[in-house]
């Protein structure tokens, strides 16, 4: 690909070259932000985590931390009593929540994609959590005492929790289902509110994908006498599989960075209330590396099964 070419002795841009220049012009804002702000801050953050910082009136001074700069990392992983526990909890919560959210949002999107009366109203209510669970409102809610006693979970804990408990006991005694599976399900039923409110964006993404599947595929398979069940597994599921990848990555990030995540609160508190800049940055980096590894592994596993049409 040549950007320039000599025409009649003058250097002129080829069409390709012009297109490239125009493309760069359009993405200038992002390039400025990414190269000018994002990357420097990322590197600064790494530098902070390896050093001690002193803030003065005119700026700040960095000093290399002890033990070859690794002091904060060592402290977070081996000395600090809270960090490891909260890190493990965050990972555990993520592995419990993410599959449930994915399954629920997929189910809900399928539901909302069917034709029935009041579909418009149902759709707007299903997307309502996008508003309801953002930022400060979620924070207030999780710290609120009355909500905990009056809210759906509190309400459940009185009568329904015992019902759920009885059912799960019944399942364990009279069926061959493994106990962990039954426990997982009963926990899911009790935590339905958390799952529902965390899946607004995912439902949107799945719904968009479902609407993008060409109806002619279904028409053809119906002609051949396929049942709805076969249609679902042979058409809907493969066609939607790229979005399962997108959504699982999004959900993992969302669960790791949500405002009510304990570890996030701990990091913020360490940096701003306790004024331990280096230590806080080190914690954040350990956390980020863990997230990145998990996303890479999960993404790698799922993308093997993903079906692309082209």
């Amino acid at each position, binding site marked *: 690909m040549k950007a320039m070419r000599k025409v009649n002795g003058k250097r002129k841009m080829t069409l390709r070259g012009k297109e490239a220049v125009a493309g760069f012009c359009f993405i200038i804002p992002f390039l400025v932000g990414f190269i000018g702000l994002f990357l420097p801050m990322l590197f600064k953050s790494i530098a902070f985590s390896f050093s001690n910082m002193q803030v003065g009136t005119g700026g700040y001074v960095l000093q290399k931390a002890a033990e070859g700069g690794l002091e904060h990392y060592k402290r977070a992983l081996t000395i600090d009593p809270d960090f490891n526990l909260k890190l493990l909890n965050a990972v555990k919560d993520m592995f419990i929540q993410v599959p449930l959210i994915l399954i629920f949002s997929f189910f809900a999107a399928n539901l909302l994609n069917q034709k029935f009366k009041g579909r418009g109203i149902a759709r707007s209510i299903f997307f309502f959590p996008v508003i309801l669970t953002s930022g400060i409102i979620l924070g207030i809610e999780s710290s609120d005492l009355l909500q905990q006693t009056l809210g759906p979970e509190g309400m459940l804990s009185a009568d329904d929790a015992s019902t759920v408990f009885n059912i799960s006991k019944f399942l364990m005694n009279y069926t061959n289902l493994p106990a962990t599976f039954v426990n997982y399900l009963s926990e899911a039923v009790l935590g339905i509110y958390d799952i529902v409110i965390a899946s607004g964006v995912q439902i949107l993404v799945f719904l968009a994908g479902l609407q993008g599947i060409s109806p002619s595929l279904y028409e053809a398979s119906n002609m051949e006498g396929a049942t709805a069940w076969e249609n679902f597994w042979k058409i809907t599921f493969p066609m939607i599989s790229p979005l399962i990848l997108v959504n699982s990555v999004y959900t993992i990030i969302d669960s790791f960075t949500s405002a009510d995540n304990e570890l*996030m609160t701990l990091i913020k508190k360490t940096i701003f209330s306790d004024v331990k800049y280096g230590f806080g940055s080190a914690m954040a980096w350990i956390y980020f590396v863990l997230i990145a590894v998990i996303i890479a592994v999960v993404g790698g596993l799922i993308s093997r099964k993903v079906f692309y049409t082209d």
Partner: protein
Amino acid sequence: MEDVRKLNNGAKFSLQKLLPRKKTAPGVERRKKKLTPARLGRIALSIVRGVIVFGICYVILYPVFVKLSVSLMDESNLYDATVKYVPKTFTLDNYRKVLKGLEYGKSFLLTAVISGGVAFLQLIVCMLTAYGFARFRFPGKNIFFGCVIFTLIVPPQILMLPMYMNFRFFDILGIAKSVTGESINLLNTAGPVLIQAITCIGFKNGLYIYMLRQFFKGIPKELEEAAFVDGCGKLRTFVQIMMPVAVPMMVTVFLFGFVWQWTDSFYTGMYMPKMALLSNKLSGLATTIAAQYKDMGGSMNFVTPGFASMMNNTGVLLVILPLVILYLACQKHFVEGIARSGIVG
């Protein structure tokens, strides 16, 4: 696609009408539709579906109803075991207190201006970037798009501290320092969020770019080619041809940006904790009101959990009310925009 289906249905429908009906003898009642297993199955399915949809809607809306009922109660009602949902002593007093505690008028305006500005800037900038990624070939495109996704994956908490320092001692290439001898302190102004918005590294901007790119990719190229042939420039094509088509998606992105800035506590708490913004006011609401109450000669020595919770519930209602109105106003576009984005891979 929808249209085709409709057409098909219409054709079927008219065909049925054209077919001669079975003759029924006069006097004999027309038989009801037969209850075939297939029909029974369909009815059962729609009942099950109705129950599930209703149940989920209930789960979503229940907390809002609880808030509404609590906000209309007197505090004594909270401790009364006979009161559930319907307040015994109906009062608007909570609202009066919260409106005053939030300084609603002032903070509403300020929040609206900042959220609107941020959402608008994000929308414009993300649209340009997304269009660039969707339509032009240039070297390193995939790498740069990978960078977009990367910004989405990095949790903002990692960048929290450098960002804070960056805006506390703000400077572009050392210009400010050489002019005034000092760097600029942008904290407690709208500067940081606006700068982040205009450079595409604001809250979840990667997601917006991604959504918009998929949308633009789904629009047939012929539209623009026609414009190019007629001698229309690239930017003008974008403004006059692409933007009108993209209205539903634009509404969606604007709504996301607006809502997330409106309720944001992360950046707001970090960059502008002293500004009169709704999310700032809301987090300290109960204590503020208790203090005001004390000044007026009230006998509130400490904040009871019931009181705090009541104030919080009322406050949350007042904060999300404008968002709900906005959401309902553009929900048609919102749903349509999502439906047509056709996000794949």
